């Protein structure tokens, strides 16, 4: 929620917000609970037309930043998506597009046009069942067999796995972390669709039963994917933090308004000091969350090599996942009974925040990461 946006960024926020308000109001979000995909393809193409999928792609590949700080640009979309608990495979598509733009072969970069236009969806298969969101935890094996590579293992919690035409897969070869890009209809690959407590966000598992691919499926060198994976994680976490902050911001805003309108004991409930003090704490957490989210995005944009980006991304995730969840949680309390019903919109945000807490690493995992980066 940067205070000093460029004019282009301001305009982008405005069009994004208007688009979401008219094309994805909360009533529409609720309706997509029944849909297997969670989002509509035509709607996604319209979102892509606004620029949602092109920000992390350089101009020569059909993208372009608004401000020279592509992650900060994308953060604007993420915040607005959070405010409207919007559907759409925003993080995976942008992460894959960004990595293909930097590390992909020319053939692989051909996919970018489809991602940018919204015709194609890609997902990033990274985490594995029951394991932490850490590159060190990747166990899916990649074996080099002549000119081919063979993948065996299982991925889980893959956003939009069942909706994607392509997967970027992070695997472990003898030489180290390795990534491949493959189509989801590749032989030996099974996508198990799944859901989450989020109303519209779908995840899936992916089983790799000795999936054989030509060497051209490699994104970068065998064993040389460490920097790409770290960057992907940083982008994903930065965007997710912005989304969580957007969600908390909206919940806080509507709850404070409600507390001023709602009377009990002859007074607006916002006049009760115990509530006022909790609201003050919430504003503190919220503003600090905004500051950290922006700081993390700026560090990822700067792509600093001194570990600043890695550290700030983890700092932001740990702070935001905890405090924004607490904000939403206490806002449920302030809303009273109606806040724990299906009819009230706040649970849509609780759901998103709870999923975001876990995905891309829990606050506990990111605190450990911070400790490690500080060399404690």
């Amino acid at each position: 929620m940067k205070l000093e946006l460029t004019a282009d960024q301001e305009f982008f926020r405005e069009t994004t917000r208007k688009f979401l308000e008219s094309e994805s109001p909360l009533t529409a979000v609720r309706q997509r609970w029944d849909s297997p995909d969670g989002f509509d393809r035509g709607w996604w193409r319209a979102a892509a037309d606004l620029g949602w999928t092109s920000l992390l792609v350089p101009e020569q590949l059909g993208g372009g930043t608004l401000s020279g700080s592509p992650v900060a640009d994308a953060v604007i979309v993420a915040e607005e998506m959070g405010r409207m608990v919007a559907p759409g495979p925003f993080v995976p598509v942008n992460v894959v597009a960004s990595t293909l733009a930097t590390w992909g072969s020319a053939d692989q970069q051909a996919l970018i046009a489809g991602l940018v236009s919204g015709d194609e969806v890609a997902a990033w298969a990274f985490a594995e069942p029951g394991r932490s969101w850490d590159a060190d935890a990747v166990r899916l094996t990649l074996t080099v067999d002549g000119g081919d590579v063979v993948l065996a293992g299982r991925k889980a919690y893959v956003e939009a796995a069942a909706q994607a035409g392509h997967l970027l897969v992070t695997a472990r070869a003898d030489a180290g972390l390795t990534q491949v890009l493959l189509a989801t209809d590749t032989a030996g690959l099974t996508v198990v669709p799944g859901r989450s407590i989020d109303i519209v966000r779908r995840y899936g598992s992916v089983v790799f039963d000795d999936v054989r691919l030509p060497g051209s499926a490699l994104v970068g060198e065998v064993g040389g994917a460490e920097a790409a994976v770290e960057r992907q994680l940083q982008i994903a976490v930065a965007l997710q933090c912005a989304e969580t902050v957007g969600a908390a911001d909206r919940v806080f805003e509507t709850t404070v308004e409600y507390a001023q309108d709602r009377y009990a004991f002859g007074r607006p409930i916002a006049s009760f000091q115990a509530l006022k003090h909790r609201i003050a704490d919430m504003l503190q957490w919220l503003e600090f969350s905004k500051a950290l989210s922006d700081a993390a995005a700026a560090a990822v944009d700067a792509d600093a090599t001194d570990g600043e980006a890695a550290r700030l991304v983890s700092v932001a995730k740990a702070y935001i996942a905890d405090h924004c969840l607490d904000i939403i949680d206490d806002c449920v309390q302030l809303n009273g009974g109606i806040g724990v019903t299906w009819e009230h919109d706040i649970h849509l945000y609780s759901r998103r925040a709870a999923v975001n807490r876990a995905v891309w690493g829990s606050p506990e995992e990111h605190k450990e990461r911070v400790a490690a980066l500080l060399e404690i």
Partner: protein
Amino acid sequence: MTDARDQAVDEDVESFRIRARAWIEANLPDRDHPGDDDRALQALLFDSGFAGIAFPREYGGAGLTLAHQKVFYDEVRAAHRWAPCGMPWQVSIGMMAPTILDHGSEELKRRHLPRMLRGEETWMQLLSEPRGGSDLAGATTRLTRDGDTYVLNGAKMWSSGAHTCDFGLCLARTDWDAPKHRGLSMIAVPLHDTPGLVLEVIRAVDGNPGHFCQEFFDDVVVPVENLVGEENSGWAVAQSLLFHERNATGGAGYGYGLQNARPTNRQAQRSADGVIATAKQRGVGGDPVLRQLMAESYIEYTASRFANDRIAAGMRTGQFKGPWGSLLKLHLGALSSRHAKIGLAVGGADGVIWEGDAKVGGVAGEAWLSARGIAIAGGTNEIQRNIVSERLLGLPREPSPDRDLPFSEVVRNQHR
């Protein structure tokens, strides 16, 4: 039937324990396979003199004390047997029956208490209103005397289990010119096939019908003899009801305590055991950070158990006067959200993401979504904190600008 109760005259707690234990072992079903007819089981308890243990004998009770009741349910649990303890018994026998006992007319008590204790009738409460929230005394449901009957108009909300109960104790306004607390009356409203009454089950956060209901009253006619207490003295009755509710929720008084209830899957997650089981299942039981969190949950629930005993003893011995059950309710209300967050940490991605197309899964996530229920229902955490500070510690009351105004002049919700 009266024979069973006769044994109980002046029986001391330890003798009662021995008698109860033998009876429990001979008569009650296994806790894990209790069958599904709690009503029949409650009738068996009643007919054997073990229902309403602390209720007077003339109303079908055993004429003993709350200490005897506690012993009985401790023995049931120790023997791994089952006696009806969850909803609606917890409410009907643990909260409504004592309220009738405190305030009902002799006729009401004689007619209804034995049926309630035997499980033939189940009762619940109709207090909160859609626009009212915690301000129960601000009720705007209208009760009007019309010759030999009352006529009820308005709406109630957050009434747990109204769809499965026979009677609801309804707080309604009979005098609009009196200050808010002095124009209310309490009346028992039949909930089945009542003309003018529309009852809807509120959809819970998981998208399914929950146990909360909403009722709309459109010229519902209720007999005058259903009034509990005097006209315009309904607030005193409500206070009594809330006292019993807090105690029952906390596990003191006439209630059975949540620890006696049959755990559902979701309730299981709402305890340290559920979280620990999740950790073992996910293979993260060895994580030192998660171990701290699981230990914390265990510690809080253990503290709750002993605080329960302490407060029961304080009330029994008269050292604790006033609504001390609020302290237990406050703890549960504050813990539920913290515990749900611990569940999210232990559940990780598996707590919020699952394979397949079912819309409900991820037990930790679902528990998190509904965790605030206990912090709101039955008096919010905030209300409990007011009660604790004002009524247990005697701190000054919150200013209530509406307290002494005629109710018709009170400012209510505004829309800007």
